[in-house]
């Protein structure tokens, strides 16, 4: 085995209150494509930022081709030979392809640019990737995939030894992914070490030679792709032992179908780069668990249902009526509610009081012309503080002073106050303590008993198993399995999430 090109050993990085990386080792060899995998909070992005000089590691060492390095800035990292291409293309859309390839290192003399040489240089850089583009075209007029390839061409221009691709395929279609892979193989053949971050396991197995898995800031292990079956990989990412697949048939036994018409039904709901056409029905009195790995399309589904993103195709029906949901306002008016996964930036209004945070959705639905009376507000607030056991010194306390779990309860109350027929909970238990988790779960059961339809999104399989009456599994933006009742078990969910040859889809 060749000596690694890039060696990270014992890397550690702490942020206030969080250990982002704890003694992580990571090796990349020349001429290999190495997948870096992990779920939320695994430490992938911190690791990449240390490599690219955005962060400095607290402990540990980095060696490139045997030499110790400690890049202090992205520019220095590039100079050393560590180039990174991010999911959002970090180029200038209003300039031409040639300029983007040459910015900061344009050829010229006496301080003046040599445009013919610049264009030649740009064409040569693209030719290395087998690309033929009009170098005078404005970058923004190209597809995201081509922009990404221009970014790769720029990165390689700098005598790169290691190329880091941070989720480059997140918004590409299959053809574009195939083109990108062709380029990656070509570069692997040239002896480059490629670090590939992705959420798509199919892609990992299609192109990667080795896999490193991180979880909660620690190294789970490094594996040759051929030696690690999908199911084992998912188990490592989720931190679960692999249980032998059950002998019961994988296709779930459908429990007695609900007799009621669905509250919400979606038909071939899709959005390019976010979700392949998806059918989904939600009935009153059920909790539909939506399971899948990070990036599988769970949050995207919620956003499309709620009108936050525009769908490319698809019909929505609410209570049997064709529904026109083009904005959250439309969705709220139809009795939908969404508790977003990002509580801090998409949920709470930190400086406003518990009362103000609680009434805002209801007030918005009523319109500013009909203010809720103060006494109504206080009554509502008192009711929910008691009903959800929100621990707060009082209704006028700023919400930022509450614990995460109690903030989450206020957000739930905000939506419950609008008396929705359907509530979408996107990772409602993330970042809150165990006691509060249990209370939220109780509350979900209560909502179901009250006849609401609940769409419950969670990364924790056990939560899906415990709380769902029905569960749908997404993989790579597609619906791949559905289970109901007792058929919802962690091993089955995991197998569906892992996909591959074990999948019965």
């Amino acid at each position, binding site marked *: 085995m060749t000596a690694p090109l890039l060696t990270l050993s014992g890397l550690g990085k702490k942020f206030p209150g969080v250990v982002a990386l704890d003694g992580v080792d990571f090796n990349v060899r020349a001429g290999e494509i190495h997948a870096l995998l992990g779920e939320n909070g695994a430490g992938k992005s911190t690791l990449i930022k240390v490599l690219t000089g955005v962060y400095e590691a607290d402990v540990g060492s980095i060696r490139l081709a045997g030499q110790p390095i400690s890049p202090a800035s992205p520019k220095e990292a590039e100079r050393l030979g560590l180039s990174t291409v991010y999911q959002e293309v970090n180029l200038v859309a209003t300039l031409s392809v040639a300029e983007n390839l040459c910015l900061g290192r344009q050829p010229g003399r006496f301080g003046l640019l040599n445009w013919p040489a610049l264009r030649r240089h740009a064409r040569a850089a693209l030719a290395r990737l087998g690309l033929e583009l009009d170098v005078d075209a*404005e970058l923004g007029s190209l597809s995201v995939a081509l922009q990404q390839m221009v970014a790769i061409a720029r990165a390689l221009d700098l005598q790169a030894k290691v190329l880091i691709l941070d989720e480059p395929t997140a918004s590409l279609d299959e053809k574009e992914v195939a083109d990108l892979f062709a380029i990656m193989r070509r570069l692997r053949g040239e002896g480059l070490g490629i670090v590939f971050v992705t959420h798509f396991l199919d892609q990992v197995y299609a192109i990667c030679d080795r896999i490193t898995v991180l979880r909660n800031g620690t190294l789970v292990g490094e594996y040759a792709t051929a030696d690690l079956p999908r199911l084992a990989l998912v188990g490592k990412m989720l931190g679960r032992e692999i249980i032998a697949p059950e002998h019961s048939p994988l296709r779930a036994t459908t429990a007695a179908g609900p007799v009621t018409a669905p509250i919400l039904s979606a038909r071939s709901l899709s959005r390019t780069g976010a979700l392949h056409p998806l059918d989904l029905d939600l009935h009153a009195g059920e909790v539909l668990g939506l399971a899948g790995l990070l990036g599988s399309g769970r949050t995207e589904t919620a956003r499309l249902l709620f009108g936050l993103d525009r769908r490319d195709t698809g019909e929505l029906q609410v209570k049997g009526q064709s529904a026109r949901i083009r904005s959250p306002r439309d969705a709220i008016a139809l009795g939908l509610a969404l508790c977003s996964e990002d509580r801090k930036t998409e949920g709470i209004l930190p400086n406003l009081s518990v009362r103000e945070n609680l009434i805002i959705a209801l007030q918005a639905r009523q319109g500013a012309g009909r203010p809720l009376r103060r006494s109504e507000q206080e009554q509502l607030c008192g009711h929910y503080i008691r009903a959800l056991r929100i621990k707060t010194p009082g209704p006028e306390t700023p919400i930022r002073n509450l614990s995460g779990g109690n903030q989450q309860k206020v957000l739930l109350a905000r939506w419950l106050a609008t008396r929705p027929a359907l509530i979408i909970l996107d990772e409602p238990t993330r970042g809150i303590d165990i006691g509060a988790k249990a209370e939220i779960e109780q509350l979900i059961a209560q909502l179901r008993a009250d006849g609401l339809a609940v769409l419950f999104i969670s990364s924790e399989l056990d939560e899906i198993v415990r709380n769902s009456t029905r569960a749908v599994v997404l993989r790579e933006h597609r619906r791949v399995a559905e289970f109901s009742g007792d058929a919802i078990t962690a091993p089955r969910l995991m197998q569906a999430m892992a996909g591959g040859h074990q999948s019965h889809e």
Partner: protein
Amino acid sequence: MSPALQRRLPLFATAAVLAALYVTAGLRYDNFFSARVAVDFFTDNAALGIAAVGMTLVIFSGGIDLSVGAVVGFTSIFVATLVEKHHVHPALAAVAALAVGTVLGAGMGALIHFFRQPAFLITLAGMFLMRGGAFWISTDSTGLAHPLLQRLSLWELPLTEKAALKMSALVLLALLALGGLLAHWTRFGRNLLALGGNESSAQLMGLPVGATRVAVYAFSGLCAALAGLALMLNSGSGNPRDGIGLELDAIAVVVIGGTLLSGGRGHMLGTLLGLLIFGVIQSAIRFDGSLDPAWTRLIIGALLLGFILLQRLLLRRLVRR
């Protein structure tokens, strides 16, 4: 349409508008198609054009400079007062004024960059400071009596029998050439566009974002001070009221020239065309005699709106892809 052509679409639109205005006016008014009239486009708008060169580069970078009109007024009264009241040599006074403009610009650029302040606010403060400074020096205008200044003020470079370029117009042409060179043939100019197009990308590409930003405001300050000198020479006196509202005209010239106000895309040639549009409209109204001068502003307003909408449409096409 080829991509390169499409990128130049705003520029072609400006050129088409200019040609249409020029031909219409020429067919309507006798002697409009003469070298003298054409030269006047430059002489009459020398200060505006010089300031617009600096403004173009600032707008390339995604910024704005509201202080230029006030710097013009300050320079005008500052130099006139130094020369006429304090008997400082005109060359020394001019150099001092250019230094003031440049240092002010650099200071504003540094505040904008290092304290992450909006350019609008910082340069608004600069505008008040400089206009206040101008009135503090003198509230009245001061005539230029110094022989050197008088000679410069009257000096002309003869082109044809009737047409001659004044000093101010020469400075304008030189600056347009310099600005074009900076914008399109140096790393500095391309860095400005990169900065205006996407600042975080520019940073990640390792471009010298801070130095570029400080330099472009310094250059704009220098241009504004030069504009002040040009205006002073053209009018033969220093006046603290010179250049009121000039910054807004300069912004209009730049935007009509097809440069994107939010930065990242534009061409110095467009600024020249925008300036000529200004000149043609003004001259046409003067030729007509019966038209109210207010029409200059009305037409400029309409053109400005038209160009902003055109850019919006082009941008939307880009974004949709």
